[in-house]
C-alpha cells in the first residue's frame, strides 16, 4: 500500500510539469545570439556550464519537453521520458524511461545536455557520473513557470525571457480579472478517490492550489498540512465546497459517481450541479500552458467573468 502510494506520488510529480500545444509568446522564437558558454544556476542551486549550443538534448520531465518544443528547440531533442506526450511530436522521440530512468539509453543517445526534474533516488548523480552535463529543472508552482522558461531558454540558446514574460502576463491578467469578483467560491479539487475513506486532494504548495487561487477560488484544503493531503468524506462534507473539480481521466471518478456518493447530496456543488472535469495534462503540469490552465480554471470558478 505504502509503496503503491509512493509510486502514485512519483507519477504525479513527473506529470506535474508540462504541456505543449498552443503556447503564448513567439510562435517561432527568435534564436538570439545567446552567448555560449553559459553558466546557469539550476533548481538544485548547482552551477552548470553549457559550453556550446546543445545539439542533442535529452529531456526527463513532461513540462521540460513542452517548454523545449515551445522554445523552438524541438528538433534538437533526441530523447524524452515516457510521460512526455505534449506536443504530439515529442512522443516520437526516443524514450528513456519514466519513474526509473534507463541510464544505458540516455548514454547511448550521446546527449550534450540532459535536462531533468528532481529525483530523490540518485538518478541525477548517476547521470553525472556517466560524464553527462545535467541541468535540473523542476517547476512546482505557477511562479516557477516564467523562471523555467528563462532558464531553459538560456540553456538551449532561445529567447526564454520573452516567453516567460508573455506567460506571466497571461496569468496576471486572469488573476487581476478574478480579483474583481465579489465572491471567492470554495473549491474542492479531487486527485484520487480510489480509497473513498481517504481522498487525495491538493493542499498549499501545489500547482493546482496556485491555479485555484489565481482563478479566484478558495481551496477547501488550503490549510492542509501537505501539498497532496488526504481528506475523509466527513471533512469534505463539512467544508461544503461550492465547486467540485475532477480530472477528465479514464480512471478518475465521474460527476455522476460523485453525486451518488452516500451523504454528498448535501454539498452545495452537488445541489447546484457544479461538478466539472478538466484535462489533467493541462492543470497537472507547470509548463508553457499555465496561462491557458489559469483561464480554464477561472471559467469554472467565475463563469460570470470568464466566458
Amino acid at each position: 500500500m505504502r509503496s503503491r502510494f509512493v509510486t502514485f506520488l512519483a507519477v504525479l510529480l513527473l506529470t506535474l510539469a508540462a504541456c505543449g500545444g498552443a503556447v503564448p509568446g513567439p510562435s517561432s522564437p527568435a534564436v538570439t545570439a545567446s552567448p555560449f558558454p553559459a553558466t546557469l544556476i539550476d533548481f538544485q542551486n548547482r552551477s552548470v556550464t553549457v559550453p556550446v549550443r546543445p545539439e542533442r538534448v535529452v529531456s526527463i520531465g513532461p513540462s521540460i519537453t513542452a517548454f523545449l518544443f515551445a522554445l523552438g528547440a524541438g528538433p534538437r531533442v533526441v530523447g524524452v521520458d515516457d510521460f512526455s506526450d505534449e506536443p504530439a511530436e515529442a512522443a516520437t522521440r526516443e524514450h528513456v524511461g519514466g519513474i526509473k530512468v534507463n541510464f544505458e539509453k540516455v548514454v547511448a543517445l550521446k546527449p550534450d545536455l540532459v535536462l531533468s526534474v528532481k529525483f530523490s533516488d540518485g538518478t541525477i548523480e548517476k547521470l553525472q557520473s556517466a560524464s553527462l552535463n545535467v541541468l535540473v529543472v523542476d517547476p512546482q508552482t505557477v511562479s516557477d513557470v516564467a523562471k523555467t522558461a528563462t532558464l531553459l531558454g538560456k540553456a538551449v540558446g532561445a529567447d526564454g525571457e520573452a516567453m516567460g514574460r508573455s506567460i506571466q502576463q497571461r496569468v496576471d491578467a486572469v488573476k487581476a480579472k478574478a480579483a474583481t469578483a465579489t465572491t471567492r467560491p470554495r473549491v474542492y479539487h479531487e486527485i484520487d478517490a480510489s480509497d473513498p475513506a481517504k481522498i487525495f486532494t491538493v493542499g498549499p504548495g501545489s500547482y493546482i492550489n496556485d491555479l485555484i487561487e489565481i482563478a479566484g477560488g478558495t481551496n477547501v484544503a488550503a490549510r492542509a498540512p501537505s501539498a497532496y493531503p488526504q481528506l475523509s468524506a466527513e471533512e469534505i462534507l463539512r467544508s461544503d465546497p461550492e465547486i467540485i473539480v475532477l480530472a477528465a481521466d479514464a480512471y478518475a471518478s465521474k460527476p455522476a459517481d460523485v453525486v451518488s456518493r452516500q451523504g454528498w447530496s448535501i454539498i452545495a456543488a452537488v445541489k447546484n450541479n457544479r461538478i466539472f472535469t478538466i484535462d489533467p495534462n493541462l492543470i497537472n503540469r507547470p509548463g508553457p500552458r499555465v496561462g491557458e490552465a489559469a483561464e480554464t480554471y477561472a471559467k469554472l470558478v467565475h463563469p460570470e467573468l470568464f466566458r
Partner: protein
Amino acid sequence: MRTAAVIAFLVAALVVSAAAGILVGAVAIGPGDVLAALFGSNDVNGTIIRELRLPRVLGAALVGGSLATAGALLQGLLRNPLADPFVTGTSAGATLAAVAAIVMGLAAPFVPLASFAGALVTVTLVWRLARVGGGTTVLTVLLAGVVLTSFAGAVVTFLLVSSDRLALQLRAVLGWLQGGVSVISWAELGVAAAIVAAGLGFALVLAHRVDAYAFGEDTAATLGVDPDRTTTAVLGATALLSGAAVALAGLVGFVGLVVPHALRFVIGATHRRLVPASFLAGAAALVLADLGARTIIAPAELPVGAITGLIGAPFFLALLVRSRRIVL
C-alpha cells in the same frame, strides 16, 4: 441465569461500543449534536452522522457478528477450536469470487452473492479435505486452510495484474484485501443485513444439532440428527455469514476465532448459547477494532484487518500450542 446475564452484558457492550463509534470521527461533533443528528437534524452534522458514521458502525457490527457466529459454527462442526472463516480459507474463497465478479464487471448487488458462492465452495472443500482418512484433526484443517488461502491469493493476484488495473481502482481493491469497513452505503448494508439475518437464523436453528456433533457423528445420528443434512445446513449458514462479511469488509482475520473461543470460557460450549453470544460479542469487538483503526494513527486510518490481526494472531498461536499438547 448466568447466560441471561452474559447476554445482557454483551448487548450493553455492543450499545456502548456503537455509541463510541458514532461519537468519534474525522470531524469533531459534540455529543448533543450527535444525538440531534441521529434524530433527524437536517444540517451537515446530520448527514455526516447518518450517512457516513452510522452505516460504518452498523457495517462493522454486522461483519464482526457474522464472522464470530461463523467461527462458532465451524469450530463446532469440525470439532476444532482453531477453525474460523479466515484460517480455513473460507474468507479467501469468498474474496476470490468477489474479485472475480468485480473483474467481470458484474453489478454491485452480485458481489455479495458471488462471495457467498465462493465461501460455500471453499468451506465445503475444507470439510472434504479435513475428512480425508476419517476423523478431522487440527492440522489437516489448518493445512487445508493454508493451501486454499494461498491458492485464492494467487488467483486474485493474477486477476488483478492481468485486468485493467486503473479501471478496477486497484487501490480500493487492495484496501479491501486488507480488511476495512471504511465506506459502506445503505444499499450495500441492506443486502448484507438480509444475508446475515438468513445466516444467523439458520445458525440459531442449527445450534442444538451442532451440540449433538460434539459427541461425534455416530452419537449425533443416534440422537436423531441426520449428519449429512446437518453438515450441509451448517456449511450453508457459515457460507452465508462469511460471504456477507467479506462482501462488506474484505479480509478481516481472527474475529471468528477469538470471540467464540473466549466466550466458551464464560458460558460453556453449548452452541445454543454460544451462537447468539458470539454474534453480539463479535459485533462489539469489531466496532471497537474499527474505532481503533480510525483513531490510533489519526488523521490517517489503519485497515481494520491490521487491528484484528495484531490481537488475533498471538491468540491463535497460543491456542495452537495448547491444542498441540491436547490433540496431537
